[in-house]
C-alpha cells in the first residue's frame, strides 16, 4: 500500500472510532519488508524475504483505555476491532492519567535525520549472501577458531504512519542493514563462543566483513583456556559493549514505568547525585543516521535529546505521556524506549585504563538475567580477562559478577575516549572501583 493509502486507512479508522463513541483514538500503521540471509558452513541455510503490515489502535472512552492490533488489514476486521475496543474500554476503569498527547511540532523532519537509505532496499539479495559467506570464511581462516556458529546479513525497510484524534498525523520511513557472525573455540568440555556484528542505516556505512569477522574471532579466541578465579572483590573494567550492557540496565531503571511503579533504584532521586562526575549519560533521539533515531515516538511525541545523568546528577527520566503524567512531568518522546543512549566519552585510552588495574577483571561478556531494577542489584555469569599489574594474564569464565548499579556509578574511576555510536546503546571503556567476583573456593 502506498503512503497515502496507509494514511487514509488510519484517518478513516480514527473517524470511525470518534463516531462510534471514542473520546480519543490513535491508529498506527506499520508496514515493513525484511530480508535475512543466514550462512553456515559456506552454504545459505536460511533465506527469508517477506513483507508484513500491522495496525495498532488505542481507544479511550472517558479516561478508560483499550487497545487492539491486527495483521489482518481487512477493513471489516479493523472496524470490528474498533467497536470491540470501545465496548471493552467502557467496562474498564477511568484513569485520570490516561489519554493521548496533544500534537506538537517535530524537532526535525524525517528527511533530515538520514534514517532511510533507498540503496538498502535495492541491494541484491545475492550481495547479502556473499557478505555473510565472507564473514564466515574470513573467520574460519584463523586456525584458532574451531567452528562457525553461522553468519547473518539482513536488511529492514519500513514505515510508521500515525494518526490520532488530537490532530497529529505523521509518517516516516527508515531502513537498516545489519550483519553478525559467531565462532566457537576451545577444547573438550571447555568450549567458548563469541560473536560480533554491526548495523547501519546507510548501506555504505556498514562495517566491512573483514573488520567484523576479525573482531568476532579476536573476541572468541582470547577466551581459549578460560577458567574461574577465586571469589574476591576487585576493580572491574568494562569494554564498550559491556558499558552498553550496563546502560541498557540503567535505561530500564530510569524508565517512567519503573519510577512511577517504585520499581527502580532511582525512585525519588531526580536532581540528586546518583554517580560521580565521570558519569554523563544522554539519549539523543535526533542523532543523524542513528540506529535509534526517529522523528516521533509511538504516540507522535517528537523525539529529542535528553540528558539523563549529567556529571553524576540525575537530570531526567525517560518518559512517555502516561508515565510522565503520573510523575507530573512532560513526555520525553521515549514511548518506544531509548533512542540513542550513550555514556559520554572521557579522556583515557583503553590501554591506560587496563594499565591502571593492579588486580581485576576486564569484562568481555555476560550471561544471565540477574538484573533487578527495583534495587539496582546486578548478578550475572561473566566472561572476561584477568588483569594483574596492568597486564592481561588469562581469560576467565564460570564466574559471577555482583554489584549494585547505584553504588557502581558512584565508584567510576576512569572513562575511555573510545565511544563509537554504532548501536542504539553505546559507551566507552569504563573502570569501576569494585565488584564481587564469585568463583572458585568454598563459600
Amino acid at each position: 500500500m502506498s503512503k497515502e493509502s496507509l494514511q487514509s486507512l488510519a484517518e478513516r479508522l480514527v473517524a470511525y472510532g470518534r463516531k462510534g463513541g471514542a473520546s480519543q483514538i490513535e491508529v498506527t500503521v506499520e508496514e515493513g519488508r525484511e530480508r535475512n540471509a543466514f550462512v553456515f558452513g559456506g552454504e545459505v541455510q536460511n533465506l527469508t524475504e517477506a513483507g508484513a503490515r500491522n495496525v495498532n489502535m488505542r481507544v479511550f472512552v472517558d479516561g478508560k483505555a483499550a487497545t487492539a492490533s491486527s495483521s489482518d488489514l481487512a477493513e471489516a476486521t479493523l472496524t470490528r476491532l474498533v467497536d470491540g475496543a470501545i465496548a471493552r474500554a467502557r467496562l474498564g476503569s477511568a484513569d485520570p492519567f490516561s489519554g493521548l498527547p496533544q500534537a506538537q511540532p517535530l524537532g526535525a523532519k524525517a528527511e533530515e535525520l538520514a534514517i532511510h537509505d533507498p540503496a538498502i532496499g535495492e541491494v541484491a539479495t545475492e550481495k547479502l549472501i556473499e557478505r555473510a559467506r565472507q564473514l564466515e570464511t574470513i573467520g574460519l581462516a584463523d586456525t584458532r577458531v574451531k567452528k562457525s556458529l553461522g553468519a547473518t546479513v539482513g536488511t529492514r525497510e519500513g514505515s510508521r504512519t500515525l494518526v490520532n484524534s488530537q490532530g497529529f498525523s505523521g509518517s516516516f520511513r527508515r531502513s537498516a542493514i545489519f550483519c553478525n557472525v559467531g565462532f566457537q573455540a576451545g577444547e573438550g568440555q571447555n568450549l567458548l563462543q563469541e560473536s560480533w556484528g554491526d548495523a547501519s542505516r546507510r548501506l555504505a556505512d556498514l562495517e566491512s566483513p573483514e573488520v567484523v569477522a576479525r573482531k568476532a574471532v579476536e573476541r572468541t579466541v582470547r577466551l581459549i583456556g578460560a577458567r574461574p578465579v577465586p571469589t574476591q572483590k576487585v576493580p572491574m573494567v568494562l569494554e564498550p559493549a559491556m558499558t552498553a550492557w550496563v546502560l541498557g540496565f540503567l535505561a530500564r531503571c530510569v524508565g517512567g514505568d519503573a519510577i512511577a511503579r517504585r520499581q527502580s533504584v532511582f525512585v525519588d532521586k531526580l536532581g540528586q547525585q546518583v554517580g560521580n562526575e565521570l558519569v554523563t549519560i544522554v539519549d539523543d533521539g535526533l542523532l543523524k543516521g542513528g540506529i535509534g533515531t526517529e522523528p516521533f515516538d509511538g504516540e507522535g511525541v517528537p523525539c529529542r535529546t535528553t540528558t539523563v545523568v549529567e556529571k553524576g546528577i540525575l537530570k531526567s527520566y525517560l518518559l512517555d505521556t502516561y508515565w510522565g503524567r503520573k510523575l507530573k512531568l512532560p513526555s520525553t518522546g521515549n514511548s518506544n524506549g531509548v533512542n540513542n543512549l550513550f555514556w559520554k566519552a572521557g579522556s583515557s585510552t583503553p590501554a591506560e585504563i587496563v594499565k591502571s588495574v593492579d588486580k581485576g577483571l576486564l569484562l568481555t561478556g555476560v550471561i544471565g538475567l540477574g538484573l533487578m531494577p527495583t534495587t539496582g542489584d546486578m548478578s550475572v555469569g561473566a566472561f572476561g580477562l584477568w588483569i594483574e599489574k596492568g597486564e592481561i594474564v588469562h581469560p576467565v569464565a564460570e564466574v559471577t559478577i555482583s554489584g549494585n548499579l547505584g553504588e557502581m556509578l558512584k565508584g567510576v574511576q576512569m572513562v575511555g575516549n573510545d565511544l563509537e555510536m554504532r548501536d542504539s546503546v553505546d559507551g566507552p571503556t569504563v573502570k569501576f572501583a569494585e565488584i564481587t567476583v564469585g568463583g572458585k573456593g568454598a563459600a
Partner: protein
Amino acid sequence: MHEMDRRELLKLAGGGAGVVIASSFFADRLLAGSVPASGVEMLQGRFGVGPEVMKKVLTAALSKGGDYADLYFEHKMSNSVSMEDDIIKESTEDVTLGVGIRVLKGTQTGFAYSSDLSPERMQQAALTAAAIASSPAPVSLPAFKEVALPHQLYTLDRPCAETPLGDKIAMVREGYQAAKANDPRITKVQVTLTDELQYVVIANSEGLLVGDTRPQARYVVSATAEANGKRGSGRDNAGGRIGMAYFTRPGLTPKEIGARAAKDALALLEAENPVAGEQPVVLGSKNSGVMVHEAVGHPLEGDSNWRKTSIMWDKLGKMVANPMVTIYDDATIPNYRGTLNVDDEGTPTRNVMLIEKGKLVGYLHDRLSARTLGLPANGHGRRMSFAHIPIPRMGNTMLGPGEATPEDIIKSVKKGFYAHSFQGGQVEDTGKFTFSVNLGYMIEDGKLTKPVKNATLVGTNLQILQEVEMIANDTQIFLGSCGKEGQWAAVTAGTPTFKIRQMTVGGRA
C-alpha cells in the same frame, strides 16, 4: 548483537496484556453454541483458501527445484485484561493472520510470509521462497489427505476467549485483592489475565493437511513489598491449554496465586545477599525446571547438534549424567502450557526421552534436523508465528522423580544454598549456563534459615549433570516463555527438589 547464539528462558513479567471480549468471527460461532470450527473449515469458509489454492501455492513454491514445501496458516485471537493501581487499567485484543511459506532444498531453507491471503500474494511469496533452489523441475503433488489429530490434549470446553470481559475483570480483581490484603507492606500489585485461541492449518508437498485449534491462558500476579527502605518483588502464575474451569482448582485460584506472589515479595524484604563461592545447592521443586530446560533441553535441540555446535553433538549413546538422572520432553501432557497435538510442521507430538539413567538417548527434532541426522521427526518443530521458520524447541521438559524426600535432601546439607524461585536462565551451545534466583534460602545444619536475594548460579552442563546427588519425588511445574533466535515459545519445565553436590553461587562477598 550479542544474543545471536544465546538461549534464554524468561519467566514472563505478566506483561503483554492479554485477554478480551470475545467478538471475533470464531467467538460468534462459539456463542451460537457450536463447537469451534476447525482451522481447515475456517480457512476455506472465511478466507476462501481451500485445497486447490494451497496446491497452486505449493506448486509455485517447488517450481525452482525445492524438494519439500509447506504452508503454515495462522489465525490467532489474543486477549488480555490487567489491573494495577486499584483500577482495571487496560484490555487488549490482537488479531494475527498470515501464512508462512517454506521451501527446503537439502538443508537449505527458503522462506517468505504474507499477512495477505489473496491467491496472488501467496503465489508471489511462494516464488520468493522457491528461490532457495535453482534447478527448475516439473512439480507433481499428491492429493491432500486431511489427517485427524493424533490426540486432543487441550480443553476446548469454556475457552477463556468465550468468557465475557466482565467475568474476567472480576477474576483479576480477586487475585489483586488477595495480594494486597495480605499485608500493608505490599505497595504494588499487578495482575494480568491473557488468553488466546490459535487456529493453525498446515499443508505440505507430501499431501499432509492438518488443522489444530489451540487455546492458551495464563493468570499472573506480581507484587512489590516495601518496608524500611527495602523492596522486594514476588510473582506467581498459573495457566495452560485450558478452559476457565482450570482456575477453580485447588492451588490455582486467583486468590491463592495472589497470596503466593505477596508471600515471596514479603520474604524478600528480609533477604540478604548470598555468600559467594562453591557450595552444595538444593534446587526446590517450585521453579527449578528452568535448570533442566537450560542445562539439558537447549543443548539437546536438534539444530545445534546436526550443526555440531552443541557440546552434546557427539555424546549420543554416552553417559552424560549421574545414573539417577532421567530427563524427557513430553509435549503430550494434557493441558500443559508447552503441549501440542501436532507441532508446527504437522508432526504428531510425543514423549521424547533425552537422558535415560544418565545416558544420552535422544534429541529434540524438527523436520530439518531429523532428516539431516537421518532420524525420525519427533514433534518438536515450533514457530512463534506465521512469520517465523520452524526450529527445534522444547515443550514440557521434565526431570524424572527420585526416591528421596525434600526433607531428606535439605537435611543432608550442612551449609549450602536453596533456590526457591527463579527469574530465568540462559545457556550457550558450549553448555555454559547461568540461572538467576529471585528468592533463595541459606541452608545451615540441615535447615532452611535466612532468605537470600540476588543469587546467580553458574556452571557447565556436563559437569553439573554429573554432580546431581539426590532427587526427591515432589515434582512441580514451572511455566515459562522461552526465547531462541528471536522466537518466543510457551513451555513448561518440571523437576522434583534435587541436590547438586557443588556449584558456584554468585553473590556479594
